[in-house]
Structures are given as C-alpha cells and as structure tokens.
C-alpha cells in the first residue's frame, strides 16, 4: 500500500492530570471540545496528517494519563518520541510548578534530541488564572523551549502549537541529513535513504518516505 504521507512524527502530550491534554488532542484531531471528557487511563493516540511546506506530515500523537502514580507505565511509551508537548493549566499553580519535574522525566526517559514545547492551557479562564503569561514565558526562556498559551475550549493556538512543533522537528531532521551527507543535495530522498541505513535505530528511521 502506498504511503499517503512524506513523514511520520511521533509526538507526546504530558503534564499533570486535568490540565487538558486529552482536550487539546481532541481539539486538534476532531476540532471539538467536550467539557465532561473522561480522564485518561493508560495511554492512547490519535492521528492527524497535516500539510507542512508542501510535505504531508502524519502526526501520531500520544496521550498519557497525568497522575504521577502511572508514570512508570506511561514512560514506556516515551521511547521513539520526536516531539513532546508539556502542558500545564494556567488556573492551577501546582501543574505549572510540576513542569520542571516533567522536564526531568523527559530527560530520563526520552531521547536527548527530542523537540519540546510548553503549553499553558485553559487561557480562556482568565478569572481563575493563577499563573501569569509572563511566568510561563520566563520558564520557557530558562529551559530554552518554545511556549504558547492555549485554550482547547476556544480553539486558541492549538493548531499553531502542533504546527510549530512539527515544523521544528522537520527542520532539525533535514539539518541532520545535510550534516551527515555534505554532498550537494540532488534529491532529499536519496539522502534520507542513506541516513536510514547508517543509523537504523535512530529516531530518524521512523520517518517514512512517500
């Protein structure tokens, strides 16, 4: 069967329970919102294929349970992730403080070169806000990670966030390919094929060609 995409990226949503990971994913994959969405037990993923600078990029987005207790199980699924969304809830101080722990968790369980992004979700709930946008930005600068406030409910910045993360992964990947093969680019396909052969276990091998 012919593949209907140029790249396959595996992404991961992590963050405390109730910050809105499933809602963000639901917004991105179905463009819908459900106030009484069920909590996530275990792990699941959704797929959406996007168009990125003329390439079809299939995003396989994994959604995990947020409660700390389940971390030993959920981290098993970090493997092979190319991008991670770290989500906190702007109306919940604790979830913001925990971002640091989640970053440590990534460092221990995901590949070192994984792309990251911090999302401050539920920014529609301004009256209940506990974490200012400035503090979010500050944290992002500290870790040198991109940051954006989102609302799954009002569909604010959700598309932007996923497109940004996907674009960063794609750029990083293409840069690596050039670095690994300094010969003039005659065709990207050739280069990618080489790369795949050379490093069969790297995350690059997960990118599939048309």
């Amino acid at each position, binding site marked *: 069967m012919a593949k209907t995409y140029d790249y396959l990226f595996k992404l991961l949503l992590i963050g405390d*329970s*109730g910050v809105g990971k499933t809602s963000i994913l639901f917004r991105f994959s179905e463009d819908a919102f459900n*106030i*009484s*969405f*069920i*909590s996530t*037990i*275990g*792990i*699941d*993923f959704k797929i959406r294929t996007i168009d990125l600078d003329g390439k079809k990029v299939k995003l*396989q987005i994994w959604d995990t*349970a947020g*409660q700390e*207790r*389940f971390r*030993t*199980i959920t981290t*098993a*699924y970090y493997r092979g992730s190319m991008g991670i969304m770290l989500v906190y809830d702007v109306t*919940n101080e*604790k979830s913001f403080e925990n971002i640091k722990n989640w970053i440590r968790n990534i460092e221990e369980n995901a590949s070192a070169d994984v792309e990251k992004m911090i999302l401050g979700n539920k920014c529609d709930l301004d009256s209940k806000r506990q974490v200012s946008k400035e503090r979010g930005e500050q944290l992002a600068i500290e870790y040198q990670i991109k940051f954006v406030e989102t609302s799954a409910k009002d569909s604010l910045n959700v598309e932007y966030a996923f497109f940004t993360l996907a674009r960063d992964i794609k750029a990083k990947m293409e840069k690596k390919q050039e670095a690994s093969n300094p010969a003039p680019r005659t065709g990207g396909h050739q280069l990618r094929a080489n790369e795949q052969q050379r490093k069969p276990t790297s995350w690059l091998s997960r990118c599939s060609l048309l």
Partner: protein
Amino acid sequence: MSSSSVDEITEQTKDLFTQDGVLLKAAMGRMVQDLNSIGMLCIVQNGDGTKCIEWRPNDLITIDSDTQDQEWAVVNTIGRRQRTLSGNMTSDYATARARIIKIPLEDLKTFRVTRNNQQMQFSTKPGVWQTTFYFQHGNAEIFVAYLKNHVKTAKTRHDRNTYVVVEPNIETQVLNRSFAELDIFTENTTDVVWNLVSNFKQRPYETTMEAFSKLTDIVYYGNEGMNGKRDVSEEVADLLTKSMSALEDSTTVTRTGEYEVVSVKPTLPPRPCIPRGTPLSTEKWEGLQDTEGRVTEVEGVKQLIFRGGVAHSIRQSVWKYLLDYYPWRMTHSELRSLQRKRTEEYFSMKLQWRSMTDGQEARFSEYRDRKSLVEKDVNRTDRTHPFFAGDNNPNLIVLQDILMTYVMYNFDLGYVQGMSDILAPLLLLMGNEVDSFWCFVGFMDKIASNFDMDQAGMKHQLLQLQQLLLFASPELAQHLQQKDSGNMYFCFRWLLVWFKREFSHRDIMRLWEVLWTGLPCSNFHLLVCVAILDAEKDIFISKDYGFTEILKHVNDLSMCLDVDRILSSAEGIYHQVVSAPHLTDQIRIILGIPPLNTTTSTSSDEATTSQSVQQANGTGDGSAEAAERDMEEDTLEYDGIQIKIVTKTVWALLA
C-alpha cells in the same frame, strides 16, 4: 597444515551441555551481522579442566559436524569429544571460529533470566550485561539448572531473576562436596529414581534434560565422587529406560537418517464450550436464605452467580454480600444494627473533612492535592449516563462526597484515578451514599494493589497475564513479544478498573458480579483478558499488527465486546489450562491452585498427572474435565461437562 600443533591439545574440549536454537541478541563489541543469528549455547570443558559457556553460530556448527543440529544433542555429547582443529582448517572455518563467544565460568559474575525464562544474560563485570541470548526452543530453565551444577549461585534479593555466582567452578573443588551439591544419589537412590520418573510425567522435557545433565557427570567422573557408595549403574539404566519410554509416550519422534528429531509440542486439551446460565432470580435468592435471613448456601450462591450473574431486581441486595459489606450469615436484625453502625461511622468520617476550615486546608497540601484530583475526576465520570449528566447534577456531589470520605478512610492510599470509575456503577445501583461507600470499600479491598504507589500490583498482574497467555495462547504471546508488546501494557486500562471502560453499564454489572465470586479460580479476571485477546489473535497475527496497531486495536475494542461470550470462553480456557498435562506450578500459583511440590510428589499427585498424560495421548475430545473426576465428590454433569458444584440443592436450582 598437516603437522599437529599445540592447538590440538588445548582444543581438546568436551561439550558438557548444549542447547540449540539460541539467538544471540546482544553482545558487546560484536559484529552486527552476528546479532540475531541462531546458534548453540553450550557448557564446555576445556582440555585443562576449566569450563566455559560457549555460543557457536549455526553455520559453524555445520562445519563442526559431530554435533547434530537438534535440541537433544546432549545425548551425543555425554562422552568425551575431541575436536582436531589443526587438521583441515579452512579460512572460512577460522573466521567462523572467531565468531564463537566464550565466557569462562571462572569469570562469570552474574546471570539473569528474563522474558518469561526465554532470555538469558551474562555478565563478567558488575553493572554490564555483556551478552544476551534468546532461547527459541523452550526456555532457559534447563540451561540454568545445568549451569547451577557448575557454579554455585545465589539469587539477589531485589531481583528474583538475577543470579550471582558465589563460587565459580564447583567441580574444581572437592568432588565429594560437589556431588552433595548436585543433590543426586546422596539420598536413597530408589527415591531419586522414583521422583525423577514422577517429575518426568509432569515435565518430561526438563526432567530428562536434568537427568542427563546429572548423568553426564556420573559418566565422566565415574564413581570417584561416590565415596564408597554402591554402584549406581543399575539405577541409572533403569532411570533412563523409564524416562525414555515415558518420553516416547508424550512426544513425537521422527526418525530421519541417523539421528532422531524429538519435538515436544505441548498442546492444550480442546476448549469446552460452557453455556452461561440464567441470572440468580429473586425466588432462588430467597430460597437460599433461612427464615431469619441468613444465607445458608454461600458457595452455592456464588456458583449460581458465577454461572449467570444476578437478576437486576435483587442486585442492590446481593452486591452488598458479594462486596463483603454484609456478612453472609447475619440475620436481618443483625444486618440492621450493622447498617446503623456503618452509617454512623461513615458520617463521622465525612464530618472530618467537611469540618476542615479554609485555613486548615491551606496548610494541608496532601489533603488539598487529593481533593483536587477528586474534583477533576468527578466532573469526568460517566457524564453521558443520565444519572450523572447535566450541570449541577446532585449525584455528582454524592460521588465527590463518597470519594472524599474514602480519602479520610484510607488517607495513605488517597485518591487515585480510576477510583471514580469503580464507584460510579455502585452509586448508580445503590442510590444511597452510605451503602455505596461501604460497597466501594469492599471493591477497593479486592483491587487495592491496582493503586499501589509504585504500581507494583499492576506490574505483577501484567506479568501474570503474560505468563497465562503464553500458556493458553502461545502463538499470540509470541507474536506480542516479537512486537515489543510482551509487557502487556496495552491491557493496563482493563486491569486497573476491571474492564469498566470496555463495557456498557449493563454489561459491567454482569461482569463484575461474576468476578466478585472468586470462581472458578483466583485471578479469573486475567483469564477474561486472555479470552478477549485470544478472540483477536487471528487479526493480530494475520495482519501482522505491531506495537502501535496492537494498542489501537485493543483500545478500540471498548464497547464492542460481548460479555457473555467472553465469560464463556474465559471459563473454557480455564478448563483447558487446568487439565493440560503440562500445567506448570507457575500457572497453578497464578490460578490459586496448590503447586505440586516437584521433589516430594505424593501418590495422589502421581495419579492425577498420569491420568493427564493419558488424556493428552487419547483422542482428547470432551475429556478435559476427567482429571477432576476423582478429586471432587460433588462434580456433576451439565450438558456433557463436568462442573464442580457444592450441593445438590444448588444443582437442582441451576437446572
């Protein structure tokens, strides 16, 4: 190349034990092309008496052809074998020899056995596993048993699968002692033979290998180590004859040319199709109580519920018993006073958190954390069901109150996601805060380990599930293992909340009440998992589903499962498993069946197992329950199937 060399002497080696079909999975500093190639794992004695573990790739074995490429090669290698390398060594052969992996036993520090006993790793340096092997045929059990005859080991406390070598090379020490350690022929010899034969019937393959491995030493060392004991050759001969004839009974032997290919393919007896019964009705339920309300036939009630569940009209009452809120043998009036007591108890616990001031709460972060988790989940629990739907639904407040009170009841456990899923159907049925709470407590007691802080309970169950699946549906288990899904994590949701997310409200009530009976064995819920997976086996295998597809497929089964069909096949699988001739102690323990002590089999064990062996060789249809016939007096026949039942009264009700 014709002159002899020193090599000839140093290469005078003897294979003490060989195991074929061993895949090299990982090795430090190895060429990639050697990885994943098949070979033979051996324990070898060198010319100078030292020993080592050797792995030889298969293409090399063909050159070195005095070892037949078969699992039973040990038979041929009992005697002394000599390899003359310097004679006609080709360059191919030289490169091939370079690919041999050698681990001197003197250097061996630790080894471990993982992946359902199929993977073995060795280390000569603390902290690194230098080599990893995968046993394609059978498992590493025999190899380990044999290795333990050559090195003295101790299991590490933190990891039951890891062995630390405490004394390398037993046999280089005093031989007498080594024989004591071998633990054979030091006891009364006839007992040894008898035990071996009886073991043999349960585990023909392993026992024979063990026997052979021990005999190897006898043959090699002669009677040196016997220290004046009488000649054992008679017993040995006897043992061998018995083993071999029993072996022929339970295995297929194909003669091809000069050597025998012996393959042991243990198969399960056919799966009986056991129909589900009708639910426990009001009349039957009342008939099973005495005039004062005591339930007289507890086991019988459980049998009936296991068979067909509970009629909805009496669920509210029956569940309180099943969930250990009401003791079965209490009278109506005793129950009334119990209820009063429990009501008071509940409200005093509820008061504890209700009376907490904002200031207290602000200084009590552990409480605050639990409370916020509860709040988040209450808003996300079964909101599509009319009982919990809509804004400001008062039932949500009750749900929250019960969960908060449970936090006070068991503060250490606190609130864990999934608990609201467990509570919702109870509240829906009971419609009463106090009753729901105590039923919830009873349910939580049954599954508390699911919510362990370190998830040890969940991991343990996932492992047990893996072991059960490997026994009951080996083909599927192997597929999952190949697809990196052997850890069964994709069943996490099923196990955590006992399938709550997989079935409709109506069906989950049926499933839970059946599982609460604890029949027909421990961990029946794991057999339910096996039944669901086994039904999907063909899809997984024919479509060659990988890691992600397996997870997706399993998640998507939610709300597409037929509860009665699954219960029926889970019961069928149970009968298949327990009457399998090769049933292992590992599986027995999971199912709560007393393990057979392999060294001190009693005569009744003997009788049962020999019966099982016969069954396996018989035509095999319908005889699955025959093994149980003698064990249970009250075994009755139901549609041609033997079912254990407690009393005739219950049987009459069931009919």
